[in-house]
């Protein structure tokens, strides 16, 4: 097998943008390895619109958004292999992959970009009691069955979890003639975007039951019904509030998990909150020359941010291969810390002289805040104090700092992102 300087693991939105950017930054030896039969990743099954408002200033469907990048990848003559599963990434950046035609092969890469995306949390991980019949699908699996395969996974549907895919599938199943009885959400707030609640539930009179969960599943063969109960402030079901919903299908949209088995086996250090690698300002993981972007890094709400991050990860991977990067110096490292409601930040560390003009810090909060402030401290000095009407866990937040702000602060060791009431 031909060797490449950069191996991009995953041909979804992150991998495509990273490949393009790496090529544009001067690295001609790039290959994308994709396990599905076509490029585009999960966007291919997201046939609803609403993609690309930031990037293209227009509303595209998922496949259309993907196609814009796929076309450019093809034009740029970037190599890719579909139907190819990456089996192993060694710490020395030897990538082992497999497909039907090449068999098992290795590529000795200089840099690797992790762009494997994420997977859905299954029923088992939620410990929902009851039977284990057919008809319990994660929302994304149901989305694939409906939009790619063309089959109806059910007719009478209850959805647990108000993640975006669950909300989108509530509408999609309704379009296809199924009856969606309700969406139950354990938390007192939705896990999805506000616009999806309005456009996918409210417009079709599908009730959203906040602070509710499924406490029992009935049916030996196929789902016959689910029991939903209200939960208290500790998320424990309240006895006496159980209501049984006869149905044949339960869809789950209860969280996404960055898919980092390969990263972990390679020895990449993981962030305890995101489930993705910890990265520096260059989207480089704890393994030099291994970069990460997209949902494998942290779960995004909008694909535009995925693409934007991937552009930077790809460019940094190219710079690394071309030898344009100063080696990391531990003493220059600034830690980025999330506190007071902010759950994590990407990146986790910054080295100023490896930074462009701007530093974008992305984060999510752990609860809903109203009329609160996003604050950033450089050491003890507050440099950002931005009032927001609503800050919610379902939406990713960002703050942008200028490089001068950081360099002006001599001996800066820590940047803190926090939510303040005043």
């Amino acid at each position: 097998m031909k060797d490449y300087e950069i191996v991009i693991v995953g041909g979804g939105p992150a991998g495509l943008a990273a490949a393009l950017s790496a090529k544009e930054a001067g690295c001609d030896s790039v290959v994308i390895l994709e396990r599905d039969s076509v490029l585009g990743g999960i966007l291919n099954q997201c046939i609803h619109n609403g993609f690309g408002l930031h990037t293209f200033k227009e509303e595209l469907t998922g496949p259309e958004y993907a196609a814009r990048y796929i076309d450019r990848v093809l034009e740029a003559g970037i190599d890719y292999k579909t139907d190819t599963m990456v089996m192993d990434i060694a710490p020395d950046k030897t990538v082992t992959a497999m497909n039907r035609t090449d068999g098992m092969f290795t590529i000795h890469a200089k840099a690797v970009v992790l762009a494997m995306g994420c997977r859905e949390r299954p029923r088992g991980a939620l410990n929902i009691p009851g039977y284990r019949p057919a008809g319990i699908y994660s929302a994304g699996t149901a989305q694939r069955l409906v939009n790619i395969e063309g089959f109806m996974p059910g007719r009478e549907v209850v959805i647990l979890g108000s993640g975006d895919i669950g909300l989108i599938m509530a509408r999609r199943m309704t379009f296809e003639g199924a009856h969606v009885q309700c969406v139950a959400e354990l938390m007192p707030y939705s896990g999805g975007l506000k616009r999806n609640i309005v456009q996918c539930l409210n417009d079709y009179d599908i009730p959203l039951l906040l602070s509710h969960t499924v406490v029992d599943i009935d049916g030996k063969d196929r789902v016959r019904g689910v029991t939903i109960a209200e939960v208290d402030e500790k998320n424990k079901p309240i006895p006496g509030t159980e209501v049984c919903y006869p149905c044949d299908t339960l869809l789950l949209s209860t969280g996404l998990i960055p898919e980092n088995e390969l990263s972990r086996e390679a020895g990449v250090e993981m962030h305890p909150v995101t489930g993705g690698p910890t990265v520096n300002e260059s989207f480089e993981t704890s393994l030099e020359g291994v970069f990460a972007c997209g949902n494998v890094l942290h779960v995004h709400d909008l694909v535009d941010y995925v693409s934007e991050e991937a552009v930077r990860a790809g460019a940094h991977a190219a710079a690394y291969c071309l030898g344009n990067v100063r080696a990391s110096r531990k003493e220059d490292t600034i830690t980025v810390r999330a506190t007071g409601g902010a759950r994590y930040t990407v990146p986790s560390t910054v080295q100023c002289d490896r930074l462009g003009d701007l530093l974008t810090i992305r984060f999510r909060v752990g609860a809903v805040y109203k009329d609160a402030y996003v604050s950033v401290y450089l050491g003890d000095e507050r440099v950002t104090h931005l009032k927001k009407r609503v800050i919610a866990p379902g939406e990713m937040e960002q703050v942008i700092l200028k490089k001068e702000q950081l360099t002006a602060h001599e001996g800066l060791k820590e940047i803190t992102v926090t939510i303040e009431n005043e």
Partner: protein
Amino acid sequence: MYDIVVIGAGVSGCAIARELSRYDASVLVVDREEDVCCGTSKANSAIVHAGFDAAEGSLMAQMNVRGNRMMDDLARDLDIPFKRNGAFVVCIDETQRDGLNALLARGEKNGVEGLRIVEKEELHRMEPNLSDDAVCALYAPSSGIICPFRLTIAMAECAAQNGVEFRFNTRVDALLRNAEGNWHLTTSTGPIVTRYVINAAGVYSADFHNRVSTKQLHIVPRRGDYCLLDREAGTHVSHTIFPQPTAMGKGILVTPTIHGNLMVGPTAIDIDNLEATATTAEGIDTLIAGASAYVKDLPIRKVITSFAGLRAHEDGHEFVLGEPEDAPHFIDCAGIESPGLTSAPAIGEYIGNLMKEKMSLREKSGWNGIRKDVLKPVGIDIEKRNALIKENPAYGTIICRCETISEGEIIDAIRRPLGARSLDGIKRRTRAGMGRCQAGFCSPRVMEILHRELDLPMDEITKSGRQSVMVFGQTKAGGGVIR
């Protein structure tokens, strides 16, 4: 007419079938489910018990110790993984020491080899994640772990390759002995006539027994809830960790599985419904609390699935093997609860010998006790693997990413004798769908392969037979191909 009909294709029924396949006899195994291993055999602790727990002199003790000893050869012949990882029965309190000594003495009388009491320091060295309260333990090095699906499927396949017939989706509704002394079975797929009936019907074994014998049996379904944890947690303990046994059973154990997961369970809850395999929140809470008393820092957040099984608990807590006095040509294999999985090979041998004697069976020539498992490409060297892919490209396509299962393995599981016909059938033969995403990724792909290989319409593909269909037809426009 058959010489012998075995009711129930669980681990006991399949072990019996494999033993009977040695002889010149026509044998049929019937099961109401679509596959082997769909009842008690599929949901248990998957332990090959040492045999210190069963009452001295009991049939249960005899079968347990014999079954344990047979397992190495059997696993080798059937090409299935088996590991003697050893077990500890742990005391977290000095007052439990007498009980431990009693267990040691009973084990030695039962013929269990290698038993000894391990004191605190050595114990914590051997098993660092035991609770700090653990003061000593009974160590049973012959205790092991196995895959109950693989064992059952392998014995069934071996029986089938030696001429035993299997009929699935066949519920036995009535059985009557006619004037010539033959049994007439009324089933959901038509009548069956046989000289002998073997009752290996699990939780329903008392029901069948009581229809033909006045000496009534009473079996209570005793539910056990389990949690299965991600392979990331699979090395949390390396031995099987038991509390001291009680009247309700061996207690809540923590064990690595043969496939590298960690398993916690079971609870022991007597119920009155023979079908009630639903887990409950209380059950799961009970087993987490129970396990946490013996093992520290239990990574319970790594749960990937929970399930429940029913043990066929007979009132006397003893295996019922043989012909009731008042029911000639009806052979019980009833009350098979833990250590039933361990005992299965010995039960098979016992019933096989019994039938040989009763029917004067002759061993047939050319019996083949060797069976090859689904070919697993993982672990073979890269050149051999590439040769395999070149010969059959299906081995180059990964269908289940969590467990790294290729299309070639899935096709093998479908095409072999008694091949898989459902998603669960594939899962139990190959592990596709058994991993951390619990089939979220692979189920549409496996459905497609089942559709293609078996020429099954998409809306007839099931999770586990009967009415467990996966999809209800096409979408409105441009739908998928059902047929």
